[in-house]
């Protein structure tokens, strides 16, 4: 069975006002307070296009390697629903603003993040369209409450071709798109706040045969649920077909509690949207350096080349720069960019310590990040600041404490009691024993107490030496430098 997954992603444009009106765009506000007469669809109102939304769409199109259509058109898509007051949505069905792009994303082959493979998904198009309002269903009183604050907010619909084959790929592609949108600033793309909504189109077929019937899966609220929903739907379709059933071309909703997809009500049969050109909006014309009109006001001109020159570094570029600048592995750069604020934290630590970045990254990814994950904290909420961590790593680098001791100090620092690493080291007596004589004495004690091991070493089994080093470490409660201990033991054993 070959699963085929395509995605339709709606990203809310990050702008002050809506796509066609001057009402404010804001997440939580008193119901129907951010609604203009046009948003409420009162007769006699007309759409006026927001320049910022056009620029956001162009930026996104350029970042996704699309061809920007210098002339694009607006259309009306008709359907009836309480949160769509006009009875139609203004969208771009015939000629959208950007077409034929691509998005590269990476996947780990295994769970250990040690091998990454790069995949590409084609972007069919990006179009500008209006968001609808919000419906709150009150089943008890058999009514729907409608809040139009979201009605008319600008959306970029990104249509990805069915080049993906499983939930993991879909989630990875969306994650990369999220990072790109956030880097561009064209959308904040936070799924939890509804700024990024994903619908998945799933079908299965046998290799060599034509594509199977596809279903559309909606109501996916996070990347994790996206992967689950897609994988569940693939399984469901395979099971249905293997049992001799057929797949209906329907829309299904993902139930996150049950972890399955269920048919959606109110979506019976294929919808006929009766697309027609939006009569109140002339074509949207974009310009580039060559076609700039001479006698037009600056404010009325959107120059594609001007926007292209000012595109910020995309995530893939940022990762490459991190690898080159700090000598870390590509996998590390992925994790750094994946956690909000982690790159900054890492760079701050590197600035404040003499430890090599390649060693610092281990402490960031293994110790800091795993602790944050265990306690569900974001980097910004970390009780250990970059300053404190750098301080600790400096002690380690200067060989004042061992790595094992450093981990102990870090565990103390997590408590966030305001102590500095040095204070904790002194408190818990974790300093490395600098007195060579003292170390020699301890080594001698260990050697005297383990004749069998000594004989094995003298007979040629060097590995047993590690056991003796470990014993010395235990005696000193981790306060000995293993390299020095090894030297001392070897010297004694060769006498």
């Amino acid at each position, binding site marked *: 069975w070959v699963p085929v997954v395509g995605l339709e992603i709606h990203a809310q444009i990050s702008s*002050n006002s809506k796509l066609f009106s001057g009402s404010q765009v804001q997440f939580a506000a008193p119901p*129907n*307070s951010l609604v203009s*007469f046009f948003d409420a669809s009162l007769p006699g109102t007309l759409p006026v296009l927001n320049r910022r939304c056009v620029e956001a769409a162009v930026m996104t199109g350029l970042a996704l390697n699309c061809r920007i259509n210098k002339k694009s058109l607006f259309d009306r898509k008709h359907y009836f629903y309480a949160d769509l007051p006009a009875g139609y949505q203004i969208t771009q069905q015939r000629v959208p603003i950007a077409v034929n792009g691509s998005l590269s994303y990476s996947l780990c082959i295994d769970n250990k993040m040690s091998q990454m493979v790069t995949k590409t998904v084609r972007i069919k198009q990006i179009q500008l369209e209006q968001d609808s309002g919000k419906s709150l269903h*009150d089943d008890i009183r058999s009514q729907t409450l*409608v809040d139009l604050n979201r009605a008319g907010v600008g959306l970029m619909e990104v249509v990805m071709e069915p080049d993906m084959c499983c939930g993991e790929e879909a989630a990875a592609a969306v994650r990369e798109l999220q990072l790109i949108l956030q880097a561009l600033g064209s959308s904040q793309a936070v799924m939890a706040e509804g700024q990024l909504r994903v619908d998945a189109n799933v079908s299965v077929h046998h290799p060599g045969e034509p594509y199977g019937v596809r279903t559309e899966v909606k109501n996916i609220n996070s990347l994790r649920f996206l992967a689950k929903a897609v994988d569940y739907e693939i399984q469901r379709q395979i099971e249905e077909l293997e049992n001799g059933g057929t797949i209906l071309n329907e829309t299904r909703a993902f139930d996150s509690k049950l972890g399955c997809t269920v048919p959606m009500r109110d979506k019976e049969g294929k919808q006929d949207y009766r697309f027609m050109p939006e*009569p109140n909006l*002339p074509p949207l014309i974009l310009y580039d350096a060559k076609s700039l009109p001479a006698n037009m006001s600056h404010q009325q001109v959107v120059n594609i080349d001007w926007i292209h020159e000012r595109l910020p570094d995309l995530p893939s570029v940022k990762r490459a720069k991190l690898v080159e600048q700090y000598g870390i592995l590509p996998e590390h750069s992925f994790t750094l960019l994946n956690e909000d604020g982690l790159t900054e934290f890492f760079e701050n630590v590197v600035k404040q310590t003499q430890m090599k970045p390649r060693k610092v990254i281990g402490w960031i990814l293994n110790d800091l990040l795993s602790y944050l994950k265990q306690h569900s904290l974001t980097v910004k909420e970390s009780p250990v600041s970059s300053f404190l961590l750098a301080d600790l790593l400096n002690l380690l680098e200067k060989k004042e404490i061992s790595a094992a001791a450093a981990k102990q100090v870090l565990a103390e620092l997590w408590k966030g009691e305001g102590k500095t690493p040095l204070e904790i080291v002194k408190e818990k007596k974790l300093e490395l024993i600098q007195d060579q004589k003292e170390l020699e004495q301890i080594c001698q004690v260990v050697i005297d107490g383990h004749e069998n091991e000594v004989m094995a070493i003298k007979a040629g089994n060097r590995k047993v030496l590690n056991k003796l080093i470990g014993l010395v470490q235990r005696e000193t409660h981790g306060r000995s430098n293993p390299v020095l201990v090894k030297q001392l033991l070897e010297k004694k054993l060769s006498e």
Partner: protein
Amino acid sequence: MRVLWFGRWLRAGAAAMVPAGPPRAAAELLAHLERLALVDFRDAEGVERLQKAIQFADRLQEVNTDGVEPMDSVLEDRCLYLREDNVTEGNCTKELLKNAREKVEEYFVAPPGNIPLPKLDEQETFLQGS
């Protein structure tokens, strides 16, 4: 395309309402159109009006449009005005809610989901009755 076929069907049975094609299919198309547009063609006058409208519009077919780009608006040569991204409207909850027949705490009230139209069999279609 189905509308064009339907139009031909209506024109064919110009004077009398006796359909040339299968009445069931035409009734279904009519019902489908009614559902989409929420318009009621339920009586003879309605259907006749529709028929006349299609005949009237069909006169457009007499013009030869080979090789001519379709025009969808007389505004096509106008400049699409671009607005600056400033907040200039909103904050008129009270005024907007004045239009609402029912409201609950500043929300508009609507029926739950879309009310489905009665199914085709349950209706007394004009065409079936004739």
